[in-house]
Structure formats: structure tokens, C-alpha cells
């Protein structure tokens, strides 16, 4: 068994041009050094039934032995407000906010604090280990505490606060339930003895959704799970009505000098800043990217997008397991030689640790330098999809996984690691520890399933196409989703043909429109996958290689978004599927997602459309009476896993030539949720011809064209029988013609 996890790391940036520097941020808890090599990836799938792992060691000036130290991952999001005189200029005060806790009773959690854990000084409002609201004030070795008698409910809004009356020497906690009916009421006020005077600790940040562990303001603990809306600090003792007025207020006249801070999370939603509306301007910074643009306690259902009424979206959903930046120190840096071809690359790290050899890869991509293509062909690294699936724990956490995959779960060494080490941060397929959906994914952390020898879905499958290109001697450039998003069609335009791989599923508006413009401009697009152009995502406006998606309530969703929360915080755009955004994939690539099949994959059968003599270039050397792709590494067929179909009512162009179909998928063919309008039996693939994979071709404007296979399994059939098979032949026929500049 190869140990793939004792050394982990990430490359930053994840995508570089020749001549640019990439830094590898590495860590190992057990290995002090590793033998390092830079490799070009040809095939990342270790399956012995296929080509196997194929990497080319690059001749590059690079340190061969890399020293390693253990670098800790610190998940958990919070807002940090740097210390400032107004935060210590008062004695008596009230603090509070609207709360929607998601894990009360799981462990102690801090909501608002100016607290040093190491010296146990300051104040903090939080939930105790049983879920009671508690308020703690401490100084000089003495601690005063007050807590509610009832634990808060999960996923129910409350107004929650506390006060210290220094004159009377009293502490109070107070809760008012937004819905006090039918067993939900947790409203109460509890008082206890407090100090009459104390010294606040010096130089401690005010922290929202956590507390500082020491005076440095760098490390935090006590992370809270759930939403916080409109937190306030007021230098007076307020009853619950007074706190309620403060939290409902959205403007704070300077006449009330007792307003210490009043944060409005509905401002600058697309940023990592939180805004204080008070005269003190105690603005804060977010760490580990909690989810913004979330419905607040005042959301009334009048809109489902924060851009329509930001005031109803003043909540941030904090998660104790948010992870957007590993913050590891760089271990080694490398400047990519100017002469390197673009491609999938990795740093390979080998070491001996105990009984098993360590071999761990850290992936990065070298893009073709913008404006300087070296080939007429570009292959797109689906980095949006790679990020969406980064460290997926779907099979570990989700009840349906084994039934969906039609067999006992087979887990890799990486899965074993992720089960135990959730601090690496999960994928947009997963839920946070509190059950809410994971909507943000960043490359500034180790990604175990985007590298050779990792789980093969997406990255590993796509390398089968790279392997085929190398095998057939076809030159190509590699470009990435990230580049297409940033620079638009100019990234695609220099190429006569652009190929998207097995699963270009996660697409921003910018990427969609770049492909649309490319096709209109005479470009040739080969889409050799399934379930492509499916979800609408956004890239972070300033942080590279960071995506956001919201599942909403349609589409094949492993979690369901909350009502009112389908708009992306990064851009304000709606998310969910492209089909529900008026752009079914059929419109762009002729076919669109309709189902999954994991029992077995199937061959296609040729249709009359393929027999048109004008398309002889496409079918040359292929027996149209024989099944197309009755072999392959994914279910022993070229049509399978996730599949797409033609539908003219959903936008397949009238000029679509329907070449072949695989519509006899058996009982394992399961339709996508959006393919079923009403409930009835007979929807599975053994009875329903709409669960199928279709192969299509259509010409576009200015001599361009599109060829789509509608199946994830396609590229994993290319290497069958020494690459001499009809899937390989057809792919080659189309590619050859698509690279020919004569109009189609």
C-alpha cells in the first residue's frame, strides 16, 4: 500500500505561466525530508487495467531533497476587530445579536468576545457545552458567570444578549425567541452577581464567532456554528427591549455616544471585511471565509436574492470547520522554465515512513502563456470542477452513496485520511459539521483528489485524454477554467479547436460566455464528457482559485440550500443549475445532463444521422453496424456514469446531427431530479428512454462546430485494446477535422 498522505501540500498559485514562480507549501507530521521531483502528468489513474500512472520527470534546476516540518491546519471562521480604545473605554455595557445556532449543545462556542483564553480575562458571550446562552466576565483571577436555564434550539432565530451593570454588580443574560409558539419559546432573562469594577485586558481583539487564545490576536478558539446577524455593543445596561431596538436599528446617530459598535454584515458582502456603522468605525476582517449573503432574522421571503434587499441579508453563517486558507509557510519555490510546455504538472514527493513507501503528489497547472499559443489545440483543465470536488467526503458522509454507486464503497488511502482529518476542508458536495452545505472551495489548502494517484473522478479521468493525446502524438496547449474566467474568449480564440474533458460541470457566467463567443467566432469545441456546463458558480472577486456555488432546490444536489440563499455572495448572481438560469447545457453543447448510471456503462448505437455521406470524415474507418464503445475502464462501456441527452425543447440547436445514442441502460439508469416533473413509476432507465447518453455534432457560425459525447465514461475508453478502438478512432477523426481550418 502506498502512503499518499504522510506528506501533503499545495501549490500557490495553482496555475502559472512559463517563467512564473510557484511555491509549494508542504507539511508532514512524520517525515523530516522527502525526495522531490517535478513531473509532467500524462496519466494519473493507477488502475492496472488502463495505462497506469504515467508521469515524466522533468529536467529542472530544483532541490532534490526537501526538508519537511509539520504545519498545522486551523479551520474555523470568525470576524476579528483589531483592538482600539473604544473597546476598553466603558464599564457597564450590553452586548447581543440575532442568532441562528446550528450546533447548540455540541460544545462550548463563543458568539462575541473580547477575551484572552490563556489568562482567562475579559468578557465573552457564548453557548456553554449544553447550549445555554452564557455570559462570562473575568479579571484578576476572578470569574463571574450567568447562563440561561434552557438550551437554545438549533436553527431557530433568537435575539440573544447580555449585560454587565458595574454600579449594581450584576450580570444578566437574555433571550427572546422569534417564534415563541409550539414548544419553541426559549425567552428568558437570568441575573447573577457580577463585579463592580475590573480592568479589561490590554491589546486583545474583539472576535465574533470565536475568541482569542492569547494576546497576539493570531490564534482563535471556541468557534461558533450558525448565523449571527447585527451584533451590537452598547456602553449601557439595556433590558431585552433596549437590545432589540439596538439590533433593529440601522442608523446610529452620533448623539448616542454609548454605541460602541454596530456591525452590519449586509455591507460589502463580496468581501472579507465587516462594517461597523458606529462613529468608531470598528471594522473587522473575516478569516476562513464564512458564508455571507445569508438570510437574517428579518428575512420575510419577499425576495430570494441579497442584492434585492441587502438589509434582510445581514447574517453571516460561521462554521467551526470553514477552511479557505491553510496559511502554511512555503517550503520550496520553483520558477517554471520559459520553454516548458503547458500541461498538468505535479511535485512528486517520495520518502520512507515505517513499513510503507510514501509517494504524494502536489498538483499545479502550467497554462499556455496568454497570447502565445504553441498549438492549434487547447485542452481545458476544468479547475472549477476540480475545486468544486476538492476533498469530497460524499462517500464518507452521505447515506445514499453506497446505494447510488451500486456496490460496497471502495475507499482510497486519501479517503481514509479525510475521514480522520476533516481540517483539510471539504468540497461543495459536502455538508459542514452542522449539516449546512459547503458552498466555498479554495485551492489554498491540500487537495487530495486533484493529483495523480488520487481518486480518479474528474482530474484522474481527464488525464486519460492527455494520455491519449500523448499516445497519438498530438501536440496541445493546456488552459484552465480560471484563465477563461479572468480573460474571457481571448484565451480560447487563438485555438482552432478546444477540448473540454470528462466533467466540465462548474461554470461561471464568464466561462459560459467565453465558450459561446468562441463557438460563434468559428471555434471548434469538442465536449468529451457528461454533466457538463451544469452548475453556475462564481469566482472570488479578489482571491485566486476560490469558487462559490449555491445548490438551491433543484438539480442533482447532495445538499439543499436554504430558502432565500441561492444568490452567490461573491457576485450577487443567482447560482443553482444553468438550466434554471435559462441556459440548459443543450443550448451550448447540444446535450444536457439527464441521469446517472453506476451499475454498468453501455455502448452507443449509431443513428441515421451518422450515415450522412457529408459526415464521412467523422465515421471514416468505423463500422456503423457495430456497437460504439462496448468497453472501457468505467463500467465497461463508453456511455455511462453521468450522461447527457439531446432535447430540442431544452435548446439543442435545430442543426444538431444526432449521431448515436445509448438509451438501453437498464435499471441502473437513474434520471436527474429536474427531469421528472410529476411523480410516477417507470422513470428508471429500464423503462425510460430519456435516461440516455447522446452523441451529437452541429456546425456553428463562421465555420465552427461542436462535437459532444454526453458521457463521463468516454475518455476512459480511449486506451482500450492499445488505443485501437472505435472510441479512439472517432475521437481522432473529429479532432483531425476540427483542426483543419477549412469551414465545417
Amino acid at each position, binding site marked *: 500500500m502506498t502512503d499518499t498522505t504522510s506528506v501533503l501540500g499545495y501549490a500557490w498559485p495553482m496555475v502559472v505561466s512559463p517563467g512564473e514562480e510557484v511555491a509549494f507549501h508542504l507539511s508532514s507530521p512524520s517525515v523530516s525530508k522527502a525526495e522531490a521531483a517535478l513531473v509532467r502528468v500524462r496519466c494519473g489513474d493507477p488502475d492496472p487495467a488502463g495505462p497506469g500512472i504515467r508521469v515524466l520527470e522533468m529536467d529542472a534546476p530544483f532541490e532534490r531533497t526537501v526538508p519537511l516540518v509539520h504545519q498545522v491546519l486551523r479551520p474555523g471562521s470568525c470576524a476579528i476587530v483589531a483592538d482600539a480604545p473604544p473597546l476598553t473605554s466603558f464599564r457597564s455595557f450590553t452586548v447581543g445579536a440575532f442568532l441562528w445556532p446550528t450546533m447548540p449543545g455540541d460544545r462550548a462556542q463563543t458568539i462575541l468576545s473580547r477575551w484572552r483564553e490563556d489568562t482567562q480575562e475579559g468578557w465573552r458571550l457564548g453557548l456553554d457545552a449544553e447550549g445555554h446562552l452564557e455570559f462570562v466576565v473575568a479579571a484578576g483571577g476572578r470569574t463571574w458567570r450567568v447562563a440561561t436555564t434552557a438550551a437554545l434550539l438549533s436553527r431557530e432565530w433568537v435575539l440573544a444578549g447580555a449585560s454587565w451593570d458595574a454600579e449594581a454588580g450584576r450580570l444578566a443574560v437574555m433571550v427572546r425567541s422569534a417564534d415563541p409558539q409550539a414548544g419553541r419559546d426559549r425567552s428568558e432573562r437570568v441575573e447573577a452577581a457580577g463585579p463592580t469594577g475590573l480592568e479589561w485586558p490590554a491589546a486583545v481583539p474583539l472576535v465574533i464567532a470565536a475568541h482569542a487564545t492569547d494576546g497576539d490576536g493570531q490564534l482563535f478558539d471556541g468557534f461558533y456554528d450558525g448565523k449571527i446577524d447585527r451584533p451590537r455593543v452598547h456602553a449601557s445596561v439595556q433590558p431585552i427591549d433596549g437590545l432589540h431596538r439596538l439590533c433593529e436599528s440601522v442608523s446610529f446617530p452620533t448623539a448616542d455616544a454609548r454605541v460602541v459598535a454596530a456591525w452590519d454584515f449586509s455591507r460589502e458582502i463580496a468581501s472579507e471585511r465587516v462594517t461597523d456603522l458606529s462613529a468608531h468605525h470598528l471594522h473587522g476582517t473575516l478569516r476562513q471565509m464564512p458564508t455571507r449573503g445569508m438570510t437574517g432574522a428579518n428575512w420575510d421571503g419577499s425576495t430570494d436574492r441579497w442584492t434585492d434587499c441587502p438589509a434582510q441579508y445581514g447574517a453571516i453563517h460561521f462554521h467551526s470547520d470553514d477552511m479557505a486558507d491553510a496559511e502554511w509557510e512555503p517550503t520550496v519555490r520553483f520558477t517554471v522554465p520559459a520553454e516548458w510546455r503547458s500541461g498538468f504538472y505535479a511535485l512528486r514527493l517520495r520518502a520512507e515512513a515505517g513499513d510503507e513507501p510514501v509517494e504524494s503528489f502536489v498538483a499545479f497547472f502550467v497554462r499556455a502563456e496568454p497570447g502565445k499559443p504553441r498549438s492549434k489545440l487547447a485542452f481545458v483543465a476544468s479547475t472549477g470542477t476540480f475545486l468544486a470536488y476538492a476533498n469530497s467526503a460524499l462517500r464518507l458522509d452521505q*447515506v*445514499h452513496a453506497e*446505494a447510488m454507486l451500486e456496490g460496497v*464503497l471502495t*475507499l482510497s488511502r486519501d479517503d481514509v485520511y479525510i*475521514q480522520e482529518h476533516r481540517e483539510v476542508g471539504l468540497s461543495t458536495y459536502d455538508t459542514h459539521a452542522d449539516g449546512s452545505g459547503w458552498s466555498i472551495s479554495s485551492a489554498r489548502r491540500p487537495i487530495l483528489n486533484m493529483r495523480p494517484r488520487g481518486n480518479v473522478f474528474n482530474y484522474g479521468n481527464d488525464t486519460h485524454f492527455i494520455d491519449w493525446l500523448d499516445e497519438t502524438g498530438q501536440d496541445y496547449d493546456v488552459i484552465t477554467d480560471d484563465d477563461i474566467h479572468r480573460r474571457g474568449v481571448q484565451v480560447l480564440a487563438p485555438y482552432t479547436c478546444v477540448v473540454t474533458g470528462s466533467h466540465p460541470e462548474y461554470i461561471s457566467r464568464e466561462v459560459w460566455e467565453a465558450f459561446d463567443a468562441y463557438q460563434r467566432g468559428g471555434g471548434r469545441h469538442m465536449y468529451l464528457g457528461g454533466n457538463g456546463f451544469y452548475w453556475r458558480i462564481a469566482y472570488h472577486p479578489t482571491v485566486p482559485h476560490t469558487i462559490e456555488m449555491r445548490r438551491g432546490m433543484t438539480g442533482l444536489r447532495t445538499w439543499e440550500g436554504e430558502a432565500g440563499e441561492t444568490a452567490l455572495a461573491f457576485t450577487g448572481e443567482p447560482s443553482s443549475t444553468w438550466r434554471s438560469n435559462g441556459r440548459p447545457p443543450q443550448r451550448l453543447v447540444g446535450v444536457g445532463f439527464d441521469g446517472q448510471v453506476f451499475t454498468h456503462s453501455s455502448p452507443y448505437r449509431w443513428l441515421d444521422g451518422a450515415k450522412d455521406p457529408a459526415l464521412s470524415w467523422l465515421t471514416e474507418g468505423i463500422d456503423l453496424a457495430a456497437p460504439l464503445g462496448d468497453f472501457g475502464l468505467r463500467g465497461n462501456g463508453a456511455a455511462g456514469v453521468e450522461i447527457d441527452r439531446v432535447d430540442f425543447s431544452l435548446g439543442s440547436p435545430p442543426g444538431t446531427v444526432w449521431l448515436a445514442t445509448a438509451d438501453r441502460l437498464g435499471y441502473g439508469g437513474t434520471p436527474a431530479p429536474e427531469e421528472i416533473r410529476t411523480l410516477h413509476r417507470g422513470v428508471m432507465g429500464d423503462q425510460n428512454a430519456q435516461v440516455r447518453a447522446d452523441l451529437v455534432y452541429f456546425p456553428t457560425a463562421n465555420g465552427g462546430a461542436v462535437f459532444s459525447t454526453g458521457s463521463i465514461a468516454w475518455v476512459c475508453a480511449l486506451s482500450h485494446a492499445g488505443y485501437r478502438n472505435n472510441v479512439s478512432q472517432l475521437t481522432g477523426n473529429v479532432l483531425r477535422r476540427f483542426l483543419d481550418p477549412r469551414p465545417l
Partner: protein
Amino acid sequence: MLVTYPEAAHWPIDPDRLDLVEEFRRQPRGPHGDELQKLLHRLRWAGDPDQPGRYVLIVTQPGKEWMLGRLPRQRGKPIELMRNHVFTSIAEAEWEVFKLRWEAVTGRTLPPHLSEKLA
């Protein structure tokens, strides 16, 4: 928040239907008849409620060798590796897991001719 529950699969299993056991043994990877599909759905969805975790396979040599394990239901808790249960084919592993599940859900031991390893 829409949640899926492991106890939701409730197709009644008849412990006398050894014909379904025989059908699975013949073709662990399918295709399966309608009733065997329903039996398998129940077992797979439920995820071994009598065990400390769901039975899973750990790939020890890609495409060649797998080890049985138990995946705890609690995040962060390590997968239990069952080093005495190693398989050289997925079909063999599927059969072993099926037998464990059948006996757990029916409370009955399989007759000798159905409790052997897959040939």
C-alpha cells in the same frame, strides 16, 4: 434542510428467501432481478446499523486487492481496518459483505452451501 435517514429503507426481508442469496452469489455485481434489487437497496441504504460503522473496502493495491473496513458514522473517527479480511476481487468482497449483512438483518446463519467463499 432536507435530510436522508438510513432507517428510511424498509423493504421487508423474508429470511426464507435463500433464492435471493443464491442469485446474488451467482452475480454479485449484477444484473439483479427486481426483488434482489430491493433487498440490496435496503442493505446498502441502512449501512449496517448493527455495526460500529458501515462496511467499506479500502483499496490496498489499485485494481488488485481490497481490505474490509468499517466506516464510523462520526466524522473524524478513524476507519477501522479489518486486516484479516483481504480480497483479490470486488465480487468476492461483495459476497462477503452480503453474507455479513444477510445474517445480521435476518438473525439467521446461512446454510453451509451458501456460506462459503466465492469460488
